[in-house]
Each structure stands twice: as C-alpha cells, then as structure tokens.
C-alpha cells in the first residue's frame, strides 16, 4: 500500500472510533455508575460524574440511625460500601497471594524441565516430550470435577492450597520455555560447565537471565488468567470469605435485589478491574509484545 488517500484514512478512523466506543461502553458505564446515587442509576441521569447531590442511605435509616447521619454523597457511599460491606482489601490481597504463588511455583517446576528437554541429551527425552504434548490437550478447566473430588477426599477444599495446586503444572509454560531455550547458544552452557557449574545451577544462573522476555510473557499470561479466574475458585471455595479471590468478592454484591446495591457493586467492579488495567497501560508495549511472543508458537 504505497499510496495514501486522506479519504481512506478518515474512513478507517471513523470505523475504528465507532468500534472503540462500543468496546469502551461497559468501562464507561462501570465507572460512571460507581459515582452515582441509586435514583440516578435507575433513571439514567446525571451525565458521567453524577450530580453528587447528597443522598439518604435507606439501609442506614432502617437500622435506626438518624437521617442526617445517613446522608452522604454518592461517590463516598458507593466506595465506602464497597470496602465495608465485604473485605475488599482482603480479596485483593488474596488475588495477589494466589497469582504470585501460582506463578512462582510454575517457574520453579517448568524451568528445569524445559532446560532438560531442550539442552540435555538423555534417555526418555522423546517419551517425556510426547507426554507433554499429550497433556497440552487437557485443559485444566475440563477436569475441574475430578480434581475437585480428589481434593475433597484429601480434605484440601477451602484452602489456599486448593486455589493454587491445580495450576502449578503449566504444560504451556514448559513448552514456551523450551522453545525459548532452544534459541540460546550452546557455547554459553559449555562455558558454564567448564567453570564447574552443576546442571541445576546452570538453569538458574545462566538460563534464567537470558529468558527474561519469555518469562515476562509467561508471567502476563499466568497472572491475568489467574487473577480473573472465576470458575475454579467458585467450585473450590464455599463459605470462607477470607479465601475469596476478587471475582468471588464481586459476585457477593449481586445478592442485592434492592436498587441501592448497584452503585457499590460497580465500585467493587472498578476496584477489581483497575489493577490489571493500570499495569497494562503502564507496560502495554511489553504486554502486547509478550502475547505476541507466546502466540508465535
């Protein structure tokens, strides 16, 4: 496409802008409603920011408190409800604990295995590699049920262990690392061997530093997937709120059939969605590069 036509360019932008509006709509709704009072939400008024007129919190009145103690602005009401009605900070903390643990364990397990499969010659290598290829066919979500049964019999349901264990084996991670390690020149490894390094320390001292781009890509996939995972925690965590991950925390808010919970619910959704989005905006080139890298295989 060597010619440049301003009409064509404008058309492309027009289409893309319309698309962007549709894509962005829910984010707009979410943030806007987290700033509005129940009346404004029900009647769709108030623009983006909401009028921020003082509103009376009916729930608080029902509890027997005087009306003026129960009057506040919508944004304060929504966000304080979000953090008070349920331990939202705890949920966020759980999200961090769970995703971090999963990723660290995944790296510990997959790096050595990937190294052995790519850089070492040993008997059984082909067999193990085929086993890995076969396991790639089994998505963990598909076997959630038997996993749940097994964990239940082991008495591990409703624990951090249950949230983390099924994800510790990342066949995809092994595959990714192996592909990457194959591109590392052998001389580097031979030099390390000559220096007297054990194979094990070669993995962590030599391969790890060179694999940082692939690790970042792997981290992105892993963290995003497990921060947002709803299905598995839903099955495995029943009543113990202290173990709720952010999506489970958000779901709690849907119990409200009275309109006054819409605002806090949107505020919770905003709080849960913000961390990843902010991280993404800061490092978007790395993010997209990471996805691309893993996509190539």
């Amino acid at each position, binding site marked *: 496409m060597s010619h440049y036509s301003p009409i064509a360019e404008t058309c492309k932008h027009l289409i893309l802008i319309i698309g962007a509006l549709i894509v962005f709509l829910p984010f707009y709704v979410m943030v806007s409603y987290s700033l509005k009072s129940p009346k404004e939400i029900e009647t769709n008024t108030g623009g983006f920011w909401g009028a921020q007129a003082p509103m009376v919190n009916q729930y608080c009145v029902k509890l027997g408190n005087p009306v003026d103690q129960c009057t506040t602005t919508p944004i304060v009401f929504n966000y304080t409800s979000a953090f008070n009605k349920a331990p939202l900070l705890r949920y966020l903390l759980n999200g961090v604990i769970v995703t971090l643990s999963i990723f660290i364990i995944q790296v510990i397990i997959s790096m050595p295995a990937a190294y052995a499969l790519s850089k070492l010659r040993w008997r059984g290598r082909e067999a193990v590699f085929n086993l890995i290829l076969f396991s790639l066919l089994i998505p963990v979500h598909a076997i959630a049920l038997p996993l749940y049964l097994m964990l239940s019999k082991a008495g591990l*349901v409703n624990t951090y262990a249950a949230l983390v264990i099924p994800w510790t084996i990342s066949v995809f991670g092994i595959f990714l690392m192996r592909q990457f390690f194959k591109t590392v020149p052998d001389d580097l490894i031979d030099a390390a061997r000559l220096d007297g390094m054990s194979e094990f320390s070669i993995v962590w001292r030599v391969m790890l530093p060179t694999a940082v781009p692939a690790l970042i890509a792997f981290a992105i996939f892993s963290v995003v997937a497990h921060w947002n995972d709803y299905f598995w925690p839903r099955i495995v965590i029943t*009543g113990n709120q202290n173990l709720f991950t952010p999506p489970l925390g958000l779901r*709690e808010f849907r119990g409200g*059939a009275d*309109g006054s919970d819409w605002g806090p619910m949107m505020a919770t959704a905003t709080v849960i969605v913000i961390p990843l989005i902010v991280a993404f905006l800061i490092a978007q080139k790395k993010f997209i590069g990471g996805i691309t890298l893993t996509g190539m295989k």
Partner: protein
Amino acid sequence: MRKILSAITIAVCASTPVHAVDIEVGYPYSHLFNVTFEKMMKDFSQQHPDINVKFRAVYEGYEEGTNIILREAISGNLPDITMQGLNRQAILVEKGIARSLEPFIAKEANFTKEGYHQAMLELGSFNNEVYGLPFSISLPVGYYNMDMMKKAGIEKLPENWSEVIAACQKLRANGVKNPVFWGWNITGNWFMQSLLWTQDTPIIKDGKFNIDNQEGLIALNTMKDIFRGCEMKNLAWKEALSSFAAGEVAMMYWSTSALGSVERAKGDFEMKTHEFPGINGKPKGLPAGGNAALLVSSSNDPERLQAAWTFLKFITSGVGAAAVAETTGYMPPNKAANEIILRDFYTQNPNKETAVRQLPLLREWMAYPGDKGLAVTQVIYDGMERIVVDEQNDMKALQKELIEEVGELLPQ
C-alpha cells in the same frame, strides 16, 4: 458489613476481660437479612460480650445454602449455625448434619413461656424432635401498585386468578407494558406448591410426586392461563423486584419476605398488599415459606455449643423475631414477639399484616425425599419455564413428562 459486625463485637469484647467463644453463622439473601442481622447484633453484643459471632459469605438463596452446607459437611468445615429454607431441613436431618436441639431445650426452664409455640416448632421438627428453630416465616401475597391500578379503573383488588387476568387486560389497554409478574421462579418450586395447596393437595404424597391427578392438571393450566392471558414477561426475579419498585409492574405475586426490601427501594407510588388469589374462591391452604436456624456444628466443645445455642435462642426470641418483622416482610414465629413487642406494629404497617391474616392457611413447604432434591427442584423449574416462554402449551403432556422425570430422581 461483616467488618462492621466483627468490629462491634470485637470492640465490645475488648472492653471486658472475658474469655470469648467464637461461633460461625451462615444465612441467605443478603438483600433481605443484612439489615436484620446488623440490627440484632447491636443488642446481642451488649448482652453477650463473651460470644464472638463471625458471619460467613451470605448464600445467594436457599438452594445454594443447602448445596454449600452439603459440600462443607464433606470437606469438614461446617459453620456452627446455618439458616436453611424450611423445605431443605429434611435432607440435613437425614444425613445427620443437623443436630437435635432437644438436649438444649430440655435444659431450658421456660421454653414455651418465651413464646415458642407448638405450631411454629412443628415446622422444624422431625421424628418428634426439634432440629430447627423457625427464624422467619412467609406466605405468598400480591403486591399492587395502587396508582397504576386506579388509573386503569380497577377499584377492587382481585380475589382469584380469573380476576387477575381480567385486570391484566384492563391495564394493558391503559398502556401498561408489563402488567403482572407471577413468581414461578421462586426457590423450591414454592409457587407450584402454592397452587397445589390452594386445592388442598400436597406435592409429595407417600414419597411419590403427587401431580398425577386433576389438581395437578388444574395447577398447570392455571399457570398457563395467567402467563398467556397477561403475556407475562420472563423476568428474573431480581429484575422483577426492581422493576416493580421502579413502578413498571402493576401487580406482583411473590413472597411477603421482600416487602421490607421493596418498601426501601420503591419510587413514589402507593403500594398495597392483598391476599394471594385463589382458583375458585379463596385458597384452601398455602405453603409456609421462610427459613429455620439449624445447629450444624461439628465441634464437640460444650462451651461452643452452648454459645451457639444462646445465639439461636436470641435470634428466634422476642427481640430477634421483632427485628425480622421490622426489617423484612417475614412474620416472626415467636408468640412473645407478636403479642408483646409488635402490638402496634401491624396497625402501623398494614401491608405486613396481609401475610399474618393468611396464617390459618399455613401448610408445609414440602421437601423432596431422597438425595436428589436439588435436581428435582430444577426439573420442575425447567417445566414451568417452558410454559412461561411459550414453548409448552400442552399441559397434559407436560404433566406426564414431569411425573416421569421426577419419578426417576425420587427414591424407588
């Protein structure tokens, strides 16, 4: 909310150097009961600073509550106390998850004096032993948006379903797009059981699914007539409640339980409740809705069990029951509450009295025998849904299908 409750209890506990016992409690329907428990805990923490109550994540509904308790029983992390739908107590008693309350009642000096009367205790009794103390009782009622009804020229509130359908036509002619919502999708097939009890028929008889008769067919046909005659929309119940509160639905048939929540959320229109319409004349019976508090603690620590019993008694006693009536539309199952604390309450809140007037019709909310109660509920739910969305118009065929499928799931 839980943080506030824990903060209150911790603050009160911290001020008295007493050894505190921890108990864990689970309850359903946050939009109904959050405010109730928050209100009760203030008094409870003052009277019992030595008991530390921790609330579990609120169950989405009765079905989910039962499912969670069953799973927690297997994985070994049951709470101490759980509120379960009246029709879901049986399976917990059967599996030995719920503990008999007789030993605790025996130790009480004046149990009946405190207002626990026989009819209410029956709702939580199995094999002549009390397992559950009823916490909140409800009955189906009709909610009416009087502004919309008057505008359409409807002066008298309907007494039977034919009158309801006639009212629908009038409302529709008057420009109302969504005249009625009939709560077919309420938990535990409660409304199906309502139509059957209206004809004095239980849904389970001798352990078998009892719709293979004239009454069953009439129930299905009544549903079909209402859905078709009123062109009722397939709203989820949460959507329906918020639609009614927003003034879009004129007549809503639902449990009286949501009354408190709807009153808090509704717009500026006059709302009245009225008796649940009958099929030919008044209903002969209606299933009791609501939940009971069960002791499911797996601990054997006598102190803990005693603390749990204290909490159980508190929430179902006069003060607790009064809080239930004040914050929701449920009826307190405690005589003391009714006679002592709430004497003027019903004159001030006539809408909440409708359910109380229907009390003589109270019947059992039947549980489905065997292990697969939740699956049976889903089958019947699916059947009713097919009528709502116009996918099933042959009620005789539907009747046969339901009998066959449910029969497979019930113990032979």
